[in-house]
């Protein structure tokens, strides 16, 4: 199994924009929340089966080793980290470029199943998994909230989480790519033993040429040209003061709406 994970940037409440990115001093990096569920799902399949290898793959700079080591600590067997100067030079690595990178990994690793998160918490394109499936000729399902593999390995029964609290039950032929929705499982915390073991697991630093690709393959058709803070649409009336004063003001508003009346 291959699990594609991303290191995502989370931004502090107050921040500044520097050109086409958030100023680095307001940014922290973490394993993408959706991918955490994808890793857990893969590790659960590994634990339930025999002879299952879980390989984590990410696109990211050396800093991302820390993130992918979390996946290793949680039970992935080895990892691949793709990076290259040509990738670093892109302000926005678009879906097609990510797809070309990950396709090369799928072709080399030949997994039966690829899991990834529904979207990345930062740029939220939500498209890489399905795009990858199309590129490598795998079947797929987006926004998977439950997953069960048939005993003969030919098929997976999945539930896709649709809008409005409705789930779609679908049978998907393997090999396939599933984009995993939060809540599908309860992601484990890495154990001390897992963290220790992860230190000795392989993270293969992989360049474009290692994948048989060239700089052109990461040349995005999309161009990020501007980043700005949206003008607030808020006409919220804020209650200032100490918590008891704020609560008293809220209580007045609530009582005017008839709340709390016996």
């Amino acid at each position: 199994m291959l699990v594609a994970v991303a290191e995502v940037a989370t931004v502090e409440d107050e921040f500044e924009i520097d050109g086409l990115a958030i100023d680095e001093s307001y940014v922290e990096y973490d394993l993408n929340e959706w991918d955490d569920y994808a890793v857990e799902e893969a590790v659960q399949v590994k634990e339930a089966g025999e002879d299952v290898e879980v390989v984590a793959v990410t696109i990211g700079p050396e800093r991302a080793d820390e993130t992918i080591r979390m996946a290793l600590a949680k039970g992935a067997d080895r990892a691949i980290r793709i990076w290259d100067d040509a990738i670093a030079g892109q302000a926005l690595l678009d879906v097609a470029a990510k797809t070309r990178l990950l396709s090369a990994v799928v072709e080399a690793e030949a997994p039966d199943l690829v899991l990834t998160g529904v979207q990345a918490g930062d740029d939220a394109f939500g498209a890489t998994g399905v795009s990858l499936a199309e590129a490598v000729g795998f079947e797929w399902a987006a926004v998977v909230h439950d997953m069960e593999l048939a005993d003969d390995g030919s098929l997976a029964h999945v539930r896709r989480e649709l809008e409005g609290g409705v789930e779609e039950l679908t049978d998907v032929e393997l090999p396939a790519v599933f984009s995993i929705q939060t809540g599908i499982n309860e992601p484990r915390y890495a154990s001390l033993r897992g963290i220790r073991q992860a230190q000795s697991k392989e993270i293969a630093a992989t360049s474009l040429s290692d994948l048989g690709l060239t700089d052109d393959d990461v040349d995005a058709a999309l161009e990020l040209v501007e980043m700005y803070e949206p003008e607030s649409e808020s006409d919220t009336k804020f209650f200032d003061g100490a918590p008891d004063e704020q609560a008293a003001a809220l209580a007045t508003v609530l009582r005017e709406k008839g709340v709390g009346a016996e």
Partner: protein
Amino acid sequence: MTDDVLAVAEYRRGALRDVSFELLSAGRALADGTGGQLHVAVVGGDVDAFADELNREGVDAVHTVDYGEEFNHDVYVQAVAALHAELDPAVLVMPNSVDGLDYAPAVAGRLDLPLVTDCVGLEAGDGLVATREMYGSKVETTVEAPLPAAVTIRSAEWPPTEGAGDASVEAFDASIDEAAIRSTVTGFEEAGGGDVDITEAEVLVSIGRGIGEEDNLDLVFDLAEALGATVSSSRPIVDSGWLPKNRQVGQSGKTVTPDVYLAIGISGAVQHVAGMKGADLVIAVNTDPNAPIFDVADYGVVGDLFDVIPELIEQFS
């Protein structure tokens, strides 16, 4: 490439979804920008009835692909790709829905089109200019792509097109290859059940990630009791298993329209706001003054819920 625009409608279980009519508005505006015609595709379901409904103001042609009863991405990819090859439009517009994200990336890949998802603003001329958010609505970005291009649009960002149209309606033979259909929808299920119906509540006390730990939920239930309110939540609380799915407000949960919606420790992600913006009065308590929940709140308190909520309970005791 023509100057035309192709929009792909969405339906589920016998009815067109609202986003289908929003796609018409987005599609028409794009076609005005490129100077072309607006084509609309509907793939499967009761295509004739859907075509009638989609024949609204500004639509030049509706193309029906009569194949299957429900959404299947393998059918959609084939049908949309075939129709795209026939019409050769400048922009392909699809919904950024759960089903949209299940076929749009594959269609774009197959047709080798640049894809911009979750657009909240679009302009087309010589190229495509899209507005999209990043970092949970903290920033907006402008993204440019060459034409032809493919986009998905966020729901409820464009108004639905209402007026009657005079489009031509044409059946399109997409020559669907059944051997390439490798997934089968076997049914639908309503998630959750339970004894609480948050859609009926007049006052909702809704809790989000800011509550921190499961044990702290007691505080929220105490407040709800003091106010005579019902407890609901945003997604992370349900994902963590602290409340059942039937308490979840938002795109993948319930849509609620209470008299009062008290959002506590909820940042207000777009998926959440989609489920509660119809509330009569919205009050938000959050530590982050820039939290998107304040874009929809009538009243706000910037502060720590663990300071404010006990005081509020006191007010009603």
